[in-house]
């Protein structure tokens, strides 16, 4: 409760979460250092970065699930959080229907539950056991569960894993819609730069520290992001320069396109290293 006192008066109603000089140690290792972050109502912020870079750690520290070893991180008092964790499984010894899961941390009426499930395309699953859901279905139900809380702040850790590619775009579109309709803030973690480009107001790249932050197109030009993401950052740039390239992003970057546009870029995937070594990149 005392955390709110420190917030500037003019922003206390808008700032949903804040990290100040945040540092986290896990197992004696410094995972995060000097992270500053804030998120306002109506804003979508995506945390990107390499595996092991501390994305999830940042999220968990902000949510109070990890104790910072330096600085502080908190969700503003009175803010209702809807959280979609990266991994979630109900133990099979615990019987649980989707309907009951929707009421786990809130007390919505039947109508609100049906509406939230419909928003994520899972209304037909309301009486189903959570143990029988596919990973993709569970992911959508979990998003509906977070929504039914009427959150001020939606926190999503890798929301599209286990959702197929067509569903992925739809899910990000939905997250944008939800923000527009409800005016909530959204903090999410993703390692997929392409979707970050389409669905985010602000990108924070984390690799032990905040290596850069800004609008998606600004971040994509950042040298450290390019170094960290390699071929994916190339596609990032392609997205900006050639907006018709969505179709070849379903899997690994397509080598053919790299050949066509290779001259525009400094960096290539591993399969081009020998080219560069031959003096091609200059």
């Amino acid at each position, binding site marked *: 409760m005392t955390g709110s006192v420190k917030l500037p008066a003019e922003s206390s109603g808008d700032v949903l979460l804040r990290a100040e000089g945040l540092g986290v140690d896990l197992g004696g290792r410094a995972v995060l250092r000097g992270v500053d972050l804030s998120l306002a109502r109506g804003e979508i912020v995506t945390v990107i970065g390499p595996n092991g870079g501390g994305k999830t750690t940042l999220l*968990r520290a902000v*949510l*109070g*699930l990890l104790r910072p070893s330096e600085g502080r991180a908190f969700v503003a008092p009175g803010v*209702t*959080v*809807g*959280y979609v*964790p990266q991994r*979630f499984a*109900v*133990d099979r*010894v*615990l*019987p*649980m*229907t989707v309907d*009951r*899961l929707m009421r*786990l*941390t809130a007390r919505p009426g039947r109508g609100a539950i049906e509406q939230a499930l419909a928003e994520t395309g899972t209304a037909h699953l309301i009486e189903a*056991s959570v143990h029988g859901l596919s990973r993709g279905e569970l992911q959508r139900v979990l998003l509906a569960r977070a929504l039914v*809380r009427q959150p001020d702040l939606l*926190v999503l850790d890798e929301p599209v894993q286990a959702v197929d590619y067509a569903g992925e775009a739809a899910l990000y579109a939905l997250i944008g819609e939800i923000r527009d309709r409800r005016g909530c803030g959204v903090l999410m973690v993703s390692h997929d730069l392409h979707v970050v480009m389409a669905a985010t107001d602000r990108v924070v790249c984390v690799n032990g520290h905040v290596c850069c932050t800004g609008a998606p197109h600004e971040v994509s030009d950042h040298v450290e992001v390019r170094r960290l993401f390699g071929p994916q950052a190339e596609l990032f740039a392609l997205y900006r320069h050639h907006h018709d390239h969505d179709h070849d992003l379903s899997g690994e970057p397509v080598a053919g396109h790299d050949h066509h546009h290779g001259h525009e870029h400094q960096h290539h995937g591993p399969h081009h290293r020998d080219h560069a070594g031959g003096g091609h990149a200059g």
Partner: protein
Amino acid sequence: MLDDFVVRALAAGLGVAVVAGPLGCFVVWRRMAYVGDTMAHASLLGIALGLILGVDLGLGVLAVTVTVALLLALLQGQRQIGSDTLLGILAHGALSVGLVAVAFMDTVRVDLMAYLFGDILAVSITDLLWIWGGGAAVLAGLALIWRPLLAATVDPDLAHAEGAAPPWTRVVFVVLIAVTIAIAMKIVGVLLITALLIIPAAAARRGAVSPEGMARMAAAVGAVAVAGGLALSFIADTPSGPSVVVSALVLFVGSLALLARG
């Protein structure tokens, strides 16, 4: 009517079963069978302390089980020795200290078997008041923490992040187990209390679709097990505690068979 020891025994057994069923569901869901066991074993030390200090045995048991639970929570903060080892040390350590302490008391004649395996003939009106009063308190407490405890059981991080599981719910839960052990001791004895917590809950899993449904079913299975076990005990003159557990076991196996067929 309560003058009849058969009626008293049944009233006591049903009172314990109705409490142990729903509480036992959480023991099963949270995979805490060994925790229940540890507290139950340690309760013998509570009996010894009660006899030595001349206080009510139920209070002695309660004091020791709560202490053991808190000690366990404290010790789990250190990382060198695993939880299972700690539980074993606490359970058998407290049980042995209790047995040794009882052996030193030559002035008091203690029927140890009654505490280890339960003695249905020994249920008095006072015991009944303990069981029903304590049982009602446990059920009320469980109803109070049901939602936050369930949320924290399904996913502790999710519950904490959404502010849905204040830390005191876990402390209350442990105290509820301690009270249940104190009141169930008379019926099934120290060594078999965990069985009364987990077997009806496990038998109820098969047919349940919701956590609340499983809790109600566990209470019902426990009640039937108590009635069956007491009948066996009266008819065949078998020890009451093991008889109740055998009865519960039969119901559990029956639940497996029923669902395998259906």
